[in-house]
């Protein structure tokens, strides 16, 4: 146990030995499954003390993803992935199955909240320089997770097979056809033929419920394993004063730190936060409060606003103007800024591709010594402009779409 880090009374109470039949049963199970060891491994670890509310964004992301999986499973009980019955099944939910309508609303609003939370989580990690050595791979995995969630968002929006879904799918698959050399082939693979049809919906359904989750779940596991391996970096505020420490003071502090600290013997100044707290119950409590609040917001929005369902897809309705989901507004606006056919690949693939690559490479591009944001202008200035760019693009897209 780290110096000055005492087990809280709540933790002791919750993990005290029980007696009677329950104790016998617990011991029987524990001997076979090692539950106590597992609980200790999961719950007893040191975390940075300062800024702990901001660190709850990671667990909130996990909780919302779990909520998405659960609500998605419920929806599968009714939803039929065929062009003739997809809309009918959701229309049935909206008008004849109140519980399923709320679940569908939660699935939609859960997705919206997930984008916000995952975005904030990334911003927090970026600003605090948490991606630095030895956590580079965890940052890359985080970016991949973000891209997978974006993929889930776009494929999920196509499944209702209403007007919005159909025309979104039409635009998205057509835009992909601008990919150099293999664009048309990729478009045909996604559509299941040269035109939109039954195979299109089936393929996007498969991508949404099988392919992307199959990639997402193990990546989340890897993300958590690496988090435990290196410990939570937290924020620069947890390392204030380390530069003034002597080697002896630093060694003493690192030796007294509780697992998972010290991390790998790299960058010793930032290997152990100066001020530590217990994951359970301190951080778990904060995580629970934030996660509960988010789930509550999702639930309320599902009841009050619900999930929209437009008219059934009509390929003949050529005057229908599809509008993208809000999280794709910047990309949509970017597409408008490259209006000529030969420029579309630049707006759709080159600019976002370069942006994503740079985002992944941030840990290797940022060679600054410190962790404080004002001491890392090399990444903070471009990062700030990127965020401003995305916000402005989204705002401009809102104005444009409103006046269509």
């Amino acid at each position, binding site marked *: 146990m780290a110096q000055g880090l005492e087990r809280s009374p709540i933790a002791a109470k919750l993990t005290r030995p029980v007696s009677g039949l329950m104790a016998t049963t617990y011991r029987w199970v524990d001997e076979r499954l090692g539950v106590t060891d597992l609980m200790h491994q999961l719950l007893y670890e040191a975390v940075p003390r300062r800024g702990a509310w901001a660190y709850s964004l990671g667990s909130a992301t996990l909780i919302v993803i779990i909520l998405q999986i659960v609500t998605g499973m419920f929806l599968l009980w009714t939803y039929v992935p065929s062009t003739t019955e997809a809309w009918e099944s959701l229309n049935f939910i909206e008008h004849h199955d109140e519980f399923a309508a709320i679940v569908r609303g939660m699935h939609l609003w859960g997705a919206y909240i997930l984008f916000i939370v995952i975005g904030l989580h990334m911003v927090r990690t970026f600003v605090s320089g948490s991606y630095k050595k030895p956590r580079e791979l965890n940052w890359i995995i985080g970016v991949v997770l973000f891209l997978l969630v974006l993929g889930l968002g776009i494929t999920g929006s196509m499944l209702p097979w209403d007007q919005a879904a159909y025309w979104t799918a039409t635009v998205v698959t057509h835009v992909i056809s601008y990919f150099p050399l293999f664009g048309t082939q990729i478009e045909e693979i996604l559509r299941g033929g040269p035109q939109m049809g039954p195979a299109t919906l089936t393929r996007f359904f498969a991508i949404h419920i099988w392919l992307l989750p199959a990639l997402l779940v193990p990546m989340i596991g890897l993300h958590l394993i690496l988090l435990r391996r290196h410990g939570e970096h937290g924020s620069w505020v947890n390392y204030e004063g380390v530069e003034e420490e002597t080697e002896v003071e630093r060694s003493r502090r690192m030796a007294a730190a509780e697992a998972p600290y010290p991390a790998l013997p790299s960058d010793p100044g930032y290997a152990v936060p100066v001020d530590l707290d217990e994951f359970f119950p301190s951080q778990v409590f904060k995580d629970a409060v934030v996660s509960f609040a988010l789930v509550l917001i999702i639930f309320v929005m599902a009841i009050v606003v619900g999930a929209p369902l437009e008219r059934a897809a009509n390929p003949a309705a050529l005057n229908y103007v599809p509008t993208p989901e809000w999280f794709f507004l910047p990309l949509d606006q970017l597409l408008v800024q490259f209006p000529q056919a030969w420029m579309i690949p630049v707006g759709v693939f080159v600019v976002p591709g370069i942006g994503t690559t740079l985002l992944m490479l941030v840990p290797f591009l940022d060679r600054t010594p410190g962790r404080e944001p004002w001491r890392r*202008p090399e990444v903070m200035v471009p990062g700030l402009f990127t965020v401003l760019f995305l916000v402005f693009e989204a705002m401009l897209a809102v104005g444009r779409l409103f006046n269509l």
Partner: protein
Amino acid sequence: MPLLAAATPQLTQVPISTGVATALVALLMLTHVQFAAWQQGGYIILAVSDFVGWKRKSERYDRFSKGLVTALGATFAVGGSLAIFAVMILFLGLWAHFWIDVQRVLFWPLVAEAAAFVGEIICLYPLYARWDRLGRVRGLRVGLEVLLFINAELQMLLINMVASYMLTPRNAFNLPAIMMNPTEIPLEIHRMVGNIAWAGAIIALTAGIRLLLRSGHRPDVRPYLDWMGHYGLIYAIGFTIAQPLVGWEYAKEIQLHAYASWYDMMLGGLSVAFLFQVFLLGAIFTVGIFYLWRRVRASGFRSPALAVCTLLSFGAWMLISTPSSLAWSYESVFAANANVPIWQGGLLIPWGAMIPWKLTALVAFTGVTIVALTTYLKYVSRGKLRWGDAGRGQAISLIAVGVAVSLIMALMGFIRENSRGPFLITNHMLINQQQNYSPPSSTGPALQGPASNSGVSVILPVETHP
């Protein structure tokens, strides 16, 4: 509208020409806009500076914040008076038709505007008068500053609805459509970013002038002025970085929804003024980057990266300042039957074209300035710059950026207001309708004019005048 119709017959015509009235309104409004923009940008700089001073216990930021709030309080008194004078005297006296129309169409946003104006006074006065006392509860003071910024932002949002409505009006009976008219959001972002840059430029300009004065050479003053100039310039060029993108979007919306205005700005009579505007934009970037390079040099560091950035920015400046033709407007080129390149005896200069050359220059400004700013801040963040090292050249650069931003602000207002001509509200109300006013009859037919193509009803049709 019967109430309005009944009230208006008491008005009499103001005995001055349309030109004089327009010049008076333009002069006053341009001055007011400059003040308002400074206030709005200054508030956010104040909040950021005071917060940083609080959290980092920096005397320099504290001193700066106190000086800034004093300046903002004083200029608010002048700018606010100008706004009230503009509404009470000029709009009611000289542009009554316009004012009645705007009141009718955007009544609630204007009420909210007035409320936000009162809110601004409520927030600003305690900061101005009780700065030190409020410093005992620093969180409250910073909170008040943030509130002040939100208030000013709200005011700008609301008045932008009027400004954008004048250029791209929408259905007069659909308030959300008017409020969200096609140029509202681009104008909002354009001004918000521009106002912060403008406030930064004024700070840099003040520091630059004071650095040149004899008092600016005192050892207890010079380091602070040097830092203040650098601080203002960071805002000035940092926020101007967003303008090429936002300005491009703004122009595109104007092209789509008010083509005549766009044509006038880009290819017509105002294109020369617009060319001068992009020349000023290039000057802001190039002189700003030049300052960064020389400021680093003044502290004894050679920065090849900043030197290259200055050169690239200079190249982009020259490119963007090249006219697309050797004529006043595109019509003149065709009138002279000389729409061939200059080497064939024509008037066209191909590398002065918007696409791809001016667009390339705009992209270059954005990219190069981000690199330059990042490189410069690297020196600052590592503590390599000694405040007080700035020389005469840096002071002049700061002044030049301040002057260029001031000119571009005034010129933009001139271009925007004139691009609508002869309309005051596009396709809806003419400027000369303001001076040949005659009261409508009590039955109010003048208030029920025909609908224009854009669905906006004409309020006071000219055909009723003799």
